[in-house]
């Protein structure tokens, strides 16, 4: 029987964090069961834009039943631009939480890299808050000195920053920050653009480090039925019976060695 549904979440607050980067807290039942690394499908109120926007969860307040999403406005007249104009009390249709989330338990007693790049930075925050490990090293990459969420990261671990233009932290990307600082870890959790994830995957495999990657692809249904958001898998997947896994349903978090990116 049907037990999940599209619900009307209520906007609790909205603020702009950086150029094109917005932060919104929403009141939703999804907060009760959400885990770090999961996402929600957010729908516009514009009937001409009918596909859900998959947005990662940045923070979870299970007690108050609120979720925080931090997202990038991708352009004029886009769904994300519509979201950025919502104010306290407005409603927004959502489905979630969706996807598998990061396996927190694998970090116990270990030295950890939590790595985020660009709009892959936000889901690292709730992960940093919940992870229990020996040493939390948060390595986050930005375009420039607008290092959104940095202060909150600092409350949850040792933070290393990289920026593309060198205006803060290491000039370059998150891998450059790790090399410059000579950092070491036993396990990696990462979310960000594919080139970054590809570099992290290679680094992890060269050094024999367990690595979990949160992937992204264009989605239609968000619940595992339409087969739009597949990634290539190393082994034949039991569900698809081919070398494809569904990012929305089987992921978005995968062990780096099980996917080809």
């Amino acid at each position, binding site marked *: *029987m*049907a*037990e*999940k*549904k*599209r619900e009307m979440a209520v906007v609790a607050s909205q603020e702009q964090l950086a150029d094109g980067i917005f932060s919104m807290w929403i009141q939703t039942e999804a907060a009760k069961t959400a885990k770090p690394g999961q996402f929600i499908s957010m*729908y516009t109120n514009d*009937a*001409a*834009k*009918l*596909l*859900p926007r998959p947005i990662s969860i940045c923070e979870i307040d299970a007690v108050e039943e609120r979720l925080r999403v931090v997202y990038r406005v991708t352009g004029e007249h886009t769904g994300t631009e519509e979201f950025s104009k919502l104010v306290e009390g407005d409603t927004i*249709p959502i*489905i979630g939480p969706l996807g598998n989330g990061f396996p927190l338990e694998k970090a116990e007693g270990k030295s950890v890299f939590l790595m985020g790049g660009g709009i892959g930075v936000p889901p690292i925050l709730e992960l940093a808050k919940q992870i229990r490990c020996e040493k939390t090293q948060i390595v986050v990459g930005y375009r420039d000195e607008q290092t959104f969420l940095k202060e909150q990261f600092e409350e949850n671990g040792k933070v290393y920053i990289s920026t593309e233009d060198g205006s803060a932290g290491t000039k370059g990307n998150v891998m450059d920050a790790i090399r410059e600082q000579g950092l070491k870890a036993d396990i990696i959790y990462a979310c960000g653009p594919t080139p970054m994830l590809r570099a992290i995957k290679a680094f992890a495999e060269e050094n024999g480090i367990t690595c979990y990657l949160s992937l992204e*692809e*264009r*989605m*239609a*249904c*968000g*619940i*595992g*039925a*339409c*087969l*739009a*958001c*597949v*990634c290539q898998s190393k082994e034949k997947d039991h*569900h*698809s*019976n*081919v*070398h*494809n896994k569904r990012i929305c*349903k089987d992921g978005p978090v995968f062990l780096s060695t099980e996917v080809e990116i």
Partner: protein
Amino acid sequence: MDMKVNIAGVEWNNPVTVASGTFGSGAEFAEYVDLNRLGAVTTKGVANIPWTGNPTPRVAEVYGGMMNAVGLQNPGIDLFCERDIPFLRQYDTKIIVNVCGKSVEDYCEVVERLAGEDVDLLEINISCPNVKEGGIAFGQQPKAAEEITRAVKKYAKQPIIMKLSPNVTSIAEMAKAVEAGGADAVSLINTLTGMKIDIDRKSFVLANKTGGVSGPAIHPIAVRMVYEAANAVSVPIIGMGGIADASDAIEMILAGASAVSVGTANFFNPAVTMKIVDGIEAYMNKHHFETVKEMTGFVK
């Protein structure tokens, strides 16, 4: 008032099914929808062997709709029979298996295999624009469509629905051709071939360059084609194309459809089909239609 419909000898509890490819085999949607309340579940296309599908990106949003080039990724008929049919059989709904292939032999192999399975209807996809061979190659020439219909009918134990493409000069000619070939029903429309270009990256949005356009934007085209097909053939028509609410579905029935499929709207709201079933019932009550059959083709 009776919501039941009879499609090629198979009685559905109501006239609402889902469009192939938008609903998997129902397992993922079962968390959001009571599958017992669907007249039928139409599965994603299945071939004789597993297909990997196209590279990503496979989907894009367009104004009032979307475009897809998934490329009929499917697990193959063996796993489908072992896993998906028993899953759907738990529910009080009819099972329509959508069949795809690259050659006449491929289609016939799947149809023959399904002859021994507990499924209710087969829908033959001769209209997918996203695979290079097969698919639409059979769906754009009346002669080829008629021949493949005749070929699969030789192996079929269940009634055959031929799924037609809108990417043709005359939908009426295509409907007549498959009827002549022995089709027990027709379903239409599949997606319209489209293209979207990312002007900043100066490249195609879909890896496949072209994709099938679906969603509310194509609904008026679908209504027109259902009307034309209904006036050309006597077999039942399953109408689809951009149905997003009950009024869209009712329009399709008044134009000549005996049943309707809901596709892209499942992505906007996974439980949309339930609202459509309720909405059709409310409309029948309000407008004093006793049966869906009375509504079918009411607008001449």
